[in-house]
């Protein structure tokens, strides 16, 4: 029956055990970085465990469905199909609670809430209100217009609601992460910027000019960050060029190249934080 789709006692007990483990280790570790590292690795473990659990359960249900007698399938009313779909979504939401998905069953379906986060910081939440009918449809939502919701719906909504939610989660989390990095840059490191930060709605094209000082010399660089994959928070293409008429001395050419690499591998605001640290170090060495 449909009820067996709800996570059984064994899975819940396991999850509770993992949860207490996280809480215990969080209390033990004083350093926030340490706790985050433990949390993230445990979080990954939990998430992977959950994913495999849900996959196993779905496989079991799929087998059960196909083995039902032909007579019985004819008798399954629309109401039961609706209920089963509803319970399925409820199960997905309960299982993916830790991955930022939550939801509430409504009179006509379910209202899903996607909480976004980037590197431990909780960001905006977005809602999708689903009507469980044939076909499944979105009643209303708070997803920004530039997120390709229609594309994602067209691909997965009718056939694989889990994939639909996952994909949407991916896009939203990535967008929120990119936006967060751009906002942080503008907020905390405006002193480095020689002009306004150019961005677009999706924050997948960022252009800015910044000045770097080292050992008494200052140079201006122009950076252009492209995120060709909308599900990532690190750029896929980075170009850093020298702004100015004079040619760059070799040591600075190395700097420029290293910056390109830095932007590809580290979060934007973290790169600038490292610049600040380096400048401070530099100053302390000089004086």
């Amino acid at each position, binding site marked *: 029956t449909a009820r067996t789709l709800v996570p059984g006692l064994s899975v819940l007990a396991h999850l509770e055990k993992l949860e207490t483990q996280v809480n215990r280790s969080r209390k033990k570790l004083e350093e926030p970085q340490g706790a985050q590292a433990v949390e993230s690795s445990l979080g990954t473990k939990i998430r992977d465990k959950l994913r495999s659990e849900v996959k196993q359960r779905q496989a079991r249900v799929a087998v059960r469905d196909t083995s039902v007698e032909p007579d019985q399938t004819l008798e399954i009313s629309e109401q039961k199909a609706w209920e089963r779909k509803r319970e399925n979504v409820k199960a997905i939401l309960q299982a993916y609670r830790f991955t930022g998905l939550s939801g*509430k069953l*409504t009179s006509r379906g379910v*209202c899903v*809430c996607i909480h976004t986060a980037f590197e431990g910081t909780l960001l905006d939440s977005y*809602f999708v*209100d689903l009507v469980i009918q044939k076909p499944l449809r979105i009643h*209303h*939502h*708070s997803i*920004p*217009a*530039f997120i390709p919701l229609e594309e994602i719906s067209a691909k997965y909504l009718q056939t694989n609601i889990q994939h639909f939610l996952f994909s949407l989660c991916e896009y939203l989390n990535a967008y929120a992460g990119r936006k967060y990095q751009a906002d942080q840059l503008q907020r905390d490191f405006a002193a480095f910027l020689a002009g306004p930060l*150019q*961005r*677009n*709605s*999706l924050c*997948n*094209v960022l*252009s800015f000019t910044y000045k770097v000082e080292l050992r008494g010399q200052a140079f201006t660089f122009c950076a252009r960050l*492209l995120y*060709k994959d*909308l599900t990532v928070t690190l750029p896929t293409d980075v170009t850093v060029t020298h702004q100015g008429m004079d040619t760059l001395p070799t040591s600075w050419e190395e700097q420029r190249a290293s910056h390109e690499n830095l932007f590809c591998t580290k979060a934007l605001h973290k790169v600038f934080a490292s610049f600040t640290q380096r400048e401070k170090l530099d100053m302390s060495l000089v004086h």
Partner: protein
Amino acid sequence: MDETVAEFIKRTILKIPMTKMMTVLKAWDFLSENQLQTVNFRKRKESLAQDLVLLCEENGVSLNDAALLDIIYTQFHRHQRVWDLFQMAKEPGEDIDLSDMEQFKSSFKKILQRALKNVTVTFRDTEENAVWIRIAWGTQYRKPNQYKPAYVMYYSQTPYAFISFSQLRSNTPLLCQALTIASKHHQIVKMDLRSRYLDSLKAIVFKQYNQNFETHNSATHLQERRLGLDINMDSRIIHENRIEKDRVHRVTQEIFGDYSQPRLEFAQYKLETKFKSDLNGGILAEREEPLRCLVKFSSPHLLEALKSLASAGIADAPLSPLLTCIPSKGMNYFKIKDK
């Protein structure tokens, strides 16, 4: 300085109501605080405008600055223009848009300038990654007419453009083409939605008008609200038709929701249907061709008015879906034919 620019600024300033004068000038940010302080704002408007124009000349005002002032005036008075909605589409499976706002603007301007030798294009960025574009049209031999501009509002990386046309309609195809190409789309289509209320159009098309979502906290609020209805009523009033009244309220709530409706001023239905009548015979009933008629609903706030129809006893609940589908379908122009 160009006489035409001075005249243009003067005429724009004269349009601004005195209550908004300071706000608009500050938003324009072309005259400094000090300069504004030297002006006597209690003068007659004509005289005030002349003083302001003199200050502008001191600062070396250009046509672009004047056009920016016009944009700001329009932004403050956006409901004075009628806005149409256009939807753009990409080819299926196309790469994601990697252009930024600067590329869009430069591309848009180039396309127009290549086609029309005389055209003034001005941009003003707003928050939320949107841009306002002002276009003054000229011809091969005539300078642009600054008094009949068209306006476009566009949110980057979305398929929607909000356009307010000038009276010079012949340039519409060119404008649409420039928008489509510059925003990396392949096709543009006019939607059946238009209104003076730009912000409502935005709410409808981006589906932002209903931001009430059921979360774990919201159930209790609904309960409280129902009780509130009872408490406010005078105990001396007995409702005869209580059940029906509750039903109407519930149905209206289901259809229109709990939120404030986006503002539209009309809905238009073009009917091309055969006459249907219960009575036997009659000339109209024998007609084979469909009747053509136009039904237009007008209101200062159409959707709120429709929402109150059933509870006011003027219409049955639920209302016809032709009326209630307006925000969800994003249409207020309908063509109805027999199936």
